[in-house]
């Protein structure tokens, strides 16, 4: 036979079964001791519902204990931290704290902002009204991305006097707007120890100011958790939600300056 035949399913399954016992696993660490010490330190709260209903004071006490436990768990469990991020009501954006410092990388990573277009065409492509920050005026470039439901618009502004260039984007200011109500988890921001995340209020709406060391921004480019994503480093960012739209201003500006740009937006 001139052409080697491709492996059939059964052969491949057999080859994998053969590989299984030889798989080069590292030695299994002893987890039992560590796990035991952690659960002994924080036992399960056991409650007896009948007795509780009869005694409101006891119920209140247990509720307080459970709340305290939930708070402690929230500090430990990254999944709960995500839930807290949602709790702060900036929809479409999840902020997680990464375990280690971020790698130092080449300054400009691809922005993947979507398709270059005009403001008019972008407006027709997205499911919300695009608003430009009055202090900046017309954007130097407009991009539209179809990743999130309802679309996303990115307004790019070149550096100019008073607006320094951002190493990570090569731009002065980048404003993005998308339907946060439709795109749960569209953006994930992973911040390292050198980045601060501060809860803030933008024009009366809840938001975050993320500043300091650049953070990782992960953008879901399709629907579903396992869809492809793009990622890059992002600089100081003000993110907030007004109505159904989530706004994001990324720049090298201070919080006060970023707030001034945001003041002209909804």
């Amino acid at each position, binding site marked *: 036979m001139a052409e080697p035949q491709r492996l059939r399913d059964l052969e491949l399954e057999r080859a994998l079964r053969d590989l299984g016992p030889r798989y080069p696993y590292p030695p299994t660490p002893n987890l039992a001791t560590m796990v035991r010490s952690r*659960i002994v330190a924080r036992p*399960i709260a056991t409650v007896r519902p009948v007795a509780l209903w009869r005694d409101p004071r006891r119920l209140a006490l247990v509720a307080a204990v459970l709340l305290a436990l939930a708070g402690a768990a929230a500090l430990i469990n990254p999944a709960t931290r995500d839930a807290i991020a949602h709790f702060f009501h900036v929809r479409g954006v999840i902020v997680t704290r990464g375990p280690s410092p971020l790698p130092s990388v080449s300054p400009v990573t691809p922005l993947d902002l979507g398709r270059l277009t005009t403001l008019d065409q972008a407006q027709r492509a997205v499911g919300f009204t695009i608003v430009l920050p009055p202090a900046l005026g017309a954007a130097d470039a407009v991009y539209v991305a179809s990743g999130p439901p309802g679309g996303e618009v990115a307004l790019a502004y070149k550096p100019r006097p008073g607006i320094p260039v951002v190493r990570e984007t090569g731009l002065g200011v980048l404003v993005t707007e998308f339907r946060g109500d439709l795109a749960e988890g569209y953006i994930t921001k992973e911040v390292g120890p050198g980045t601060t995340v501060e809860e803030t209020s933008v024009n009366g709406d809840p938001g975050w100011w993320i500043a300091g060391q650049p953070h*990782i921004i992960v953008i879901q480019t399709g629907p579903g958790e396992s869809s492809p994503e793009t990622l890059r480093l992002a600089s100081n960012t003000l993110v907030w939600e007004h109505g159904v739209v989530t706004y994001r201003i990324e720049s090298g500006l201070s919080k006060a300056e970023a707030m001034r740009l945001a003041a002209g937006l909804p």
Partner: protein
Amino acid sequence: MEGRPLDDTALVERARNGDVNAYEALVQHYQELAFRVAYQVTGDAADAEDAAQEAFVNAYYALGRFRAGAPFRPWLLRIVANEARNRRMAAHRRTALAQRALVAQTSGEAAPSPETAAEAEEFRATLLASLRRLRDDDRLILAYRLFFDLSEAEMAEALKCPKGTVKSRLSRALGRLRAALPADVRLPATAGETDG
């Protein structure tokens, strides 16, 4: 691999009532499997250890939501795989960013030239490398079935998917593994004949 449903059920019940020793026994029993499943996802020993440890702790506090009498093993593995995925994702993002600085470097992939004597070993190395290139989900489903011998019901529970879709998922994962293998790969005469 034979599960120990009776022992598990009793241990889980005791752990639920705050018996730390019972839970420690469960950890002892499943730590190797949990660590290996986590390693299948993370590909890194330290991340796998963290993920497995975190999963055991989280599973303990989630015992209240565990359906009494249900199989513990697939339920635990689902938590392990989730923890491992989170860690892998974080690690992957860091690596991906770091690698952008190294674009200039060529990926010097050496063409395998099998020697007859080392053919089986070579084949396994190729298989392993292709396996590692698969998506987590595909690698996990193959590992659950072919490395860890989970039943279809257990796989459905561990993967949180309908039982009826396990077979087709497995078959698609095999297909993608085949596609990831070099086109000229051949099953060596010896491979697969060692067990009966």
